[in-house]
């Protein structure tokens, strides 16, 4: 469970923890302000009708990200857990 995958690779219902925020510039700060910091738990809730963007549960809020932006966020420790286990919290593993 130690390999890293981009956030965009998560399937609906899968979750993982933020390893590295690869984005640069204003979007990096925006993502960080939304709570995508080291170890934060993210659940992929739902893809849009065309598969891109997708909606993610981040620290209790649902945020849609485009594939291109989600692709720059590297995740680790992914599991196949469903969203039913999605807690209103985050990085506390």
């Amino acid at each position, binding site marked *: 469970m130690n390999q890293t995958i981009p956030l965009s690779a998560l399937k609906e219902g899968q979750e993982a923890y933020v390893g590295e925020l690869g*984005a640069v510039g*204003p*979007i990096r*700060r*925006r*993502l*960080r*302000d*939304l*709570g995508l*910091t*080291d170890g*934060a738990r993210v659940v992929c*809730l*739902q*893809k*849009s*009708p*065309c*598969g*891109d*963007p997708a*909606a993610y*549960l*981040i*620290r*209790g*809020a*649902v*945020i*849609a*990200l*485009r594939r*291109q*932006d989600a692709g720059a966020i590297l995740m680790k420790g992914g599991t196949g857990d469903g*969203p*039913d*286990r*999605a*807690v*209103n*919290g*985050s*990085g*506390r593993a």
Partner: protein
Amino acid sequence: MGLTAQSTGAAALDTGLSIDRSDPATRVIAVGGNPNVGKSTVVNALTGLRQHTGNWPGKTVTTAQGLCRFEGKPYVLVDIPGTYSLFANSAEEEAARDFLCFGGADAAVIVCDATCLERNLNLVLQAIEIQPRCAVCVNLMDEARRKGVRVDLARLRELLGVPVTAASARSRRGLDDLMRAVAEVSRGEAPQPPRVRYSPAIERAAERLLPLLRGLPRPGPSPRWLSLRLLEPEESWTEDFAAFVKRLPAAEEIRREAGQVRRALAAEGVDAGLLQDLVAGRLIAEAERIAGACVTAPPDGGFARDRRLDRLFTSRWTGIPVMLLLLALVFWLTIAGANGPSELLGALGAWSEEELARLLNGWGAPEWLTGAAVHGMYRVLWWVVSVMLPPMAIFFPLFTILEDFGYLPRVAFNLDHAFQKAHACGKQALTMCMGFGCNAAGVVGCRIIDSPRERLLATVTNSFVPCNGRFPTLITILTIFFAAGSAGGIVPALLLTGVILLGVGMTFLVSRLLSATILRGVPSSFTLELPPYRRPQVGQILVRSLFDRTVFVLARAAAVAAPAGLLLWILANVDAGGTSLLSHCAAALDPLGRAVGLDGPILLAFVLGLPANEIVVPILIMTYMAQGSLSELSLPQLQSLLIANGWTWKTAACMVLFTLLHWPCATTLATIFRETKSLKWTAAAFLVPTLCGAALCALVALIPV
């Protein structure tokens, strides 16, 4: 909720902010918070303002203020745009932060969403760092309770070190507690909240600057916050921040020392980028710790129902069909419901017009006066009211229910892929939804789009969505020419849906074309929050929205339709060489009109309708009637009038197309100029839809029948 008279039309123009502090007892309170936590609802409830509220993030793009009295003392509440942080990374964050720091706020209220407290606390901690005179309002407590989320307010107050109150602003609960806390922080001693402690290197650096920052002007940012921001490189300072530092007593010394401290910090390995990451990361970790201590939530966060709804509204197989179905349903209810009232109002108008004319004649009024006042002003006014009011009074409450429910961000989510293909921003869908109400409001709403290029795309194409003033025209023409004998308005509803889809399709196409030409660029990154679904306050919406639409339509009718009616009557009744001025103008435009499948009078109606689209059809009727005569105007009579003037289904199709695609009204153009500060882009917003409309109409006119 929904668009209000204050958020549409000329009132959509943002006139800037100046705060009246003539009474020394006045306290200025900045009301901030994450997007979509109910700031505007709180401010509206406390001040009696009637700002547009709705369940989507980024709705408040302008700064509004209102006066509130509590226990006899005056408070000016300033509603600042919602932001996720105060690091000034985007235009609205910069505006929010600069107001909080340098706008002269004596204290701040940070409104939080109880169902998503952790993310909100990040902003709270940043605000407290700037301004310890902070009161935290944990809003949406009713919603949190329904979701099984509990917040320990006493513990939260203890950990944050500032007053914390609970509220459910939509049902006006907790507002007195909030004002008591506001009074406490703005008039009493400043709270002494515990500080968020950063890494030792950062703390040491900030410590070195603190002695230079004594005696800062009040109200203003705290020395602690200032010392931390001075660690950031000067190139990244905002204009207001730089100006503030320059005005400080020991400005030069501070800047010199800050430069040295920054170099020392960099030598320890903390450069500008890492500094921001460390500071932001620490704040988020602290927010997580505090939320962990104060919030208990069920395992699914209480959002199981939201996820089920999202699967219905946004999944691969149901997302788009449900969206189209909802759109058609709203149109069908609008058309079917408006039919009766429109006819009734029309008959009432015709009857009262005659009575009024008889009354005036009885008083011996000259014929020209009766003509101008009754057959000119009064008739056009009634036409606008009877045709515009019923559909709008039905459409807007329905639309507002969807908005309040939280559906609009899902539309943006569903459509984002297409916007991405058009090299535009998904939030453009939200600005288009606002355009339904009023294109001027839609253009102001474009501020929610961060990228300047994508904001211009949204601005230039906003009028592809038919506004309040064009909807009823579309409905009338579609009903007359394409839905003969159809029962219940289903056919016109489907046709109208098709026309809207054409407008949306044109938006994608034109955005893509502009992206390849004058607005060259690739889509930029963006994030879109999908807020929790909320139960719409149906009763309140019906009353409020009905009232607001009535006021809006009547005000527009009085302000534009009546004077236009007068002008028209004069144009139609002043003879110049045997025919009226109106006929002369129409004749002059005739060749141009024919070239695009219309005729002179139609084109003249659009030209004279520049001040407001509502008057296009009345102008047209007047022009035609100047050449014939007609006493009453019901739909069948309108149909005969149009057919008598040579209309075929092609003319009607071109009329529909040109109504959808032509220049924006004068108010919208003025708003575009204000927002872009550029004549070039205002001209583009005029020309782009006009050329599209003319081209499509010319194509239709070529169809051989």
